[in-house]
């Protein structure tokens, strides 16, 4: 059902020195501590990371609960901040799918799509035969997901020992790591324009609408970058 050799090959990608494990772990330790302070039990916190596995979404959930938002509002806010997972999934699946693999694997493993696993697989998929890429991806997804779950547990347990400054230190690790990872990914004109324009338009549109800024900024920046790429190639 799953080729274990390639599953573990993917699973162990997290061990590399510059893997996103550190950033992923820091952000979910912060989530674990935050959920404890919000009144979640340990089981609820673990359950939350297990089912959601997207840090910005969990943060929005926590903040919405804190201000007493309605369920509809929580749904909308989380959907808007996590909508990036849609283009991320579309731009991943065609690279790993193979006719020999059953469809359920894609619908199940798409739960693992998050910035860390996505960057790892985008960097490494070409080294694996197409036939084995799905299992390789499931391995990457499983290990990053486990790191998030274990970190939530660590954060929950150590919440009482984490002071404000440590929480702020933890909070900066994740965006700084991924900012540098994004700069690393800028290896052609199209992707570089997408990243630079996104980084400018996202916060830019935040001044107009905070909820819609990522989605609208992303669509606008990505579309302009696409046309820059097409004109450049022709």
């Amino acid at each position, binding site marked *: 059902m799953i080729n274990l050799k390639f599953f573990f090959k993917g699973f162990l990608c997290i061990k590399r020195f510059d893997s996103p494990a550190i950033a992923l772990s820091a952000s979910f330790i912060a989530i674990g501590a935050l959920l404890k302070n919000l009144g979640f039990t340990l089981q609820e916190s673990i359950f939350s990371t297990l089912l959601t596995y*997207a840090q910005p979404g969990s943060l929005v959930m926590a903040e919405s609960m804190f201000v007493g938002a309605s369920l509809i509002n929580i749904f909308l806010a989380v959907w808007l901040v996590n909508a990036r997972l849609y*283009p*991320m999934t579309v731009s991943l699946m065609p690279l790993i799918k193979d006719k020999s693999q059953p469809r359920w694997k894609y619908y199940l493993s798409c739960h693992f799509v998050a910035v860390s696993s996505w960057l790892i697989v985008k960097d490494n998929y070409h080294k694996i035969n197409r036939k084995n890429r799905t299992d390789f991806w499931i391995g990457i997804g499983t290990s990053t997901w486990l790191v998030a779950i274990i970190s939530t547990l660590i954060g929950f347990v150590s919440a009482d020992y984490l002071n*404000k400054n440590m929480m702020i230190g933890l909070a900066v690790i994740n965006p700084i790591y991924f900012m540098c990872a994004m700069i690393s990914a800028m290896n052609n004109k199209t992707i570089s324009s997408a990243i630079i324009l996104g980084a400018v338009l996202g916060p830019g549109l935040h001044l107009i609408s905070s909820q819609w800024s*990522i989605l609208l900024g992303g669509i606008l920046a990505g579309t302009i970058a696409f046309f820059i790429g097409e004109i450049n190639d022709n």
Partner: protein
Amino acid sequence: MTTKIILVILITSLATYISRFFGVFTSEKINEKSRIYRWFNCLAYSTLAALISRMLLFPSGDLSETTLLLRVIIILISISIFYLTKRNLVYPTIFSAIIMAALIN
């Protein structure tokens, strides 16, 4: 477990999973060499960049208690360390947390 919290967790995970689900659904007919694929690839990088840069410039949570100036200084130092260490991802990340802790008070 309280019902309210469970409900919130389920709503949050549903709101997250639908984007992933429709991602797989949409990609079923998409070839990696097609134009539409290239567009989605641009959208993926640009929305990620939009999110990360918003997290640093207009953060929510604990980071929002720091000043914008401090965060911009940390961004610039981190990018410098990133290039000085031959594009290493770990050093700027660790240094950013240390510098943040040192400059915060």
